[in-house]
């Protein structure tokens, strides 16, 4: 029983981490689907989301605009709600700028897209360092979602519950958007066959711009919610893009629920190894990836992979 009590918080941490990983991975996957580009800058845009939130939450973030004072004067709860909307929009605009740069690589060797987004990741990380400094920063959080909750004898961080709940809400909304709206149908059709959607009268250039902005906004949202868990550091982006990559391979490229399940799995693995063998917590993720590619290359819910005969 003691063992279980000890295990439970780590499992719950794993769930919170996994759901946020899934959110990052789903945005990453949307971009792969429609653009056929592996966006290595996805993690840097995740980090940028946290930094934008920092600047909008507190004057310490270095935002000198007069209009920002209106925001800083609001109660912290409202400020947080507004930041959860504004910061992802800001990151989406940056992401759309990156998409414009990427256009010439579409339909060419995927290496060009990889190189360009890798370069963008380095540039973004350095820009973050120049703007906000190299040291770890903290985003003030509304007191209603911080502190501890007691479940029986168990002390648990309230924020992890908020993070899990918020990630579930976002994943649910994303699913509804993709499955129930005409835009979702266009995105899925565009990911399957871009030529055909053009021949149906869809402006593919605009669709791609939108999907890239949308995918990076999801990364930014995850970045803001992850900030109190991971801390806000310039190179935090790398910590985010790697699990996203592992998750889409593990879940099966193109599979929505595959990504969610794989996200939870990776979150648990990282959470539990973090508890018992801290040094192994990152390696564990890669071992998982190697096992999947070796024994089931299509991932958990993916279609038959090119790696399988």
């Amino acid at each position, binding site marked *: 029983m003691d063992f279980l009590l000890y295990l439970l918080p780590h499992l719950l941490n794993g769930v919170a981490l996994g759901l946020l990983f899934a959110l990052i991975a789903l945005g990453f996957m949307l971009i792969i689907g429609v653009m056929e580009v592996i966006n290595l800058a996805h993690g840097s845009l995740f980090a940028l989301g946290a930094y934008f939130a920092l600047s909008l939450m507190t004057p310490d973030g270095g935002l000198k605009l007069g209009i920002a004072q209106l925001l800083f004067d609001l109660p912290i709860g409202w400020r947080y709600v507004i930041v959860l909307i504004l910061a992802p929009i800001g990151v989406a605009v940056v992401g759309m700028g990156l998409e414009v740069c990427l256009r010439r690589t579409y339909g060419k060797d995927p290496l060009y897209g990889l190189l360009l987004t890798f370069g963008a990741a380095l540039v973004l990380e350095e820009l973050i360092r120049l703007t906000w400094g190299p040291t770890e920063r903290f985003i003030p959080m509304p007191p209603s979602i911080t502190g501890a909750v007691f479940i029986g004898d168990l002390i648990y961080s309230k924020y992890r519950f908020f993070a899990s709940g918020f990630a579930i809400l976002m994943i649910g909304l994303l699913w509804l958007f993709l499955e129930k709206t*005409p835009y979702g*149908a266009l995105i*899925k059709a565009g990911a*399957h066959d871009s030529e055909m959607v053009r*021949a149906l009268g*869809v402006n593919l250039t605009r669709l791609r711009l939108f999907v890239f902005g949308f995918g990076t906004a999801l990364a930014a949202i995850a970045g803001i919610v992850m900030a109190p868990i991971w801390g806000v550091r310039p190179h935090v982006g790398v910590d985010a893009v790697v699990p996203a990559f592992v998750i889409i391979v593990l879940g099966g490229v193109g599979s929505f629920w595959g990504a969610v399940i794989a996200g939870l799995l990776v979150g648990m693995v990282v959470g539990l190894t973090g508890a018992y063998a801290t040094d192994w917590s990152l390696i564990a993720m890669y071992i998982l990836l190697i096992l999947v590619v070796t024994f089931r290359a299509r991932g958990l819910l993916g279609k038959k992979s090119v790696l399988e005969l």
Partner: protein
Amino acid sequence: MILDVTAIDTYYGETQALFGVSLSVDAGEVVALLGPNGAGKTTTLRSILGLTRPRRGAIRFDGADVSRKPTHDIARMGVGWVPDDRRICPTLTVARNLSIALKRTRFRPWSMKEVFGIFSPLEYLVEREAENLSGGEMQMVAIARALLGSPGLVLFDEPSQGLAPKIVQDVLAIIRRLKDEGLSVIIVEQNAETALSVADRVYVLDRGTVAWSGLAAALRDDAGKRRDLLGA
């Protein structure tokens, strides 16, 4: 004249696929493009749609030069496409595959109800994921999708390919119906007999050039000429 293609040269990379192909389609006319594999039939359709743009020559649709227009603009002007491999999105339901195709042009609009009137089985398949459809059902969805885009010209690429004879007859009946409604049709076929049974005029392509053009009746009635041009 609804479509006027003048001396187009189309390339795939550095490989030239069309050499000065010219053809025209009148309103309410069904034109067949015949010829062996690799003759340039599909490339001609792709050029008209702007998917593979001709390097030289001109394409006019409905009075406007479309040779430099993006594909989605050409589609919005009223060019519909029924590709040979159907290209239905497998992860969407039939209803969602059809809904993304709905658009208005200056041509006659088609409602879902009218389309289901022609393809009655579709009405019972609307909630089915497209990956679970049969070949004939896929073809119905592909044609329904083209109609919902309110086309003035429909490009059929190998519509009989892989279909049972009964369904091929249904497809031909639909093409006749479109013609009666005043729409224009280009039908690309390997199977000359199928195409000749609905076409008004024919272009025979060979290695990227127009080898012969004339009335479909001339080929239908002259087995010798048919053998000369099509080897069948």
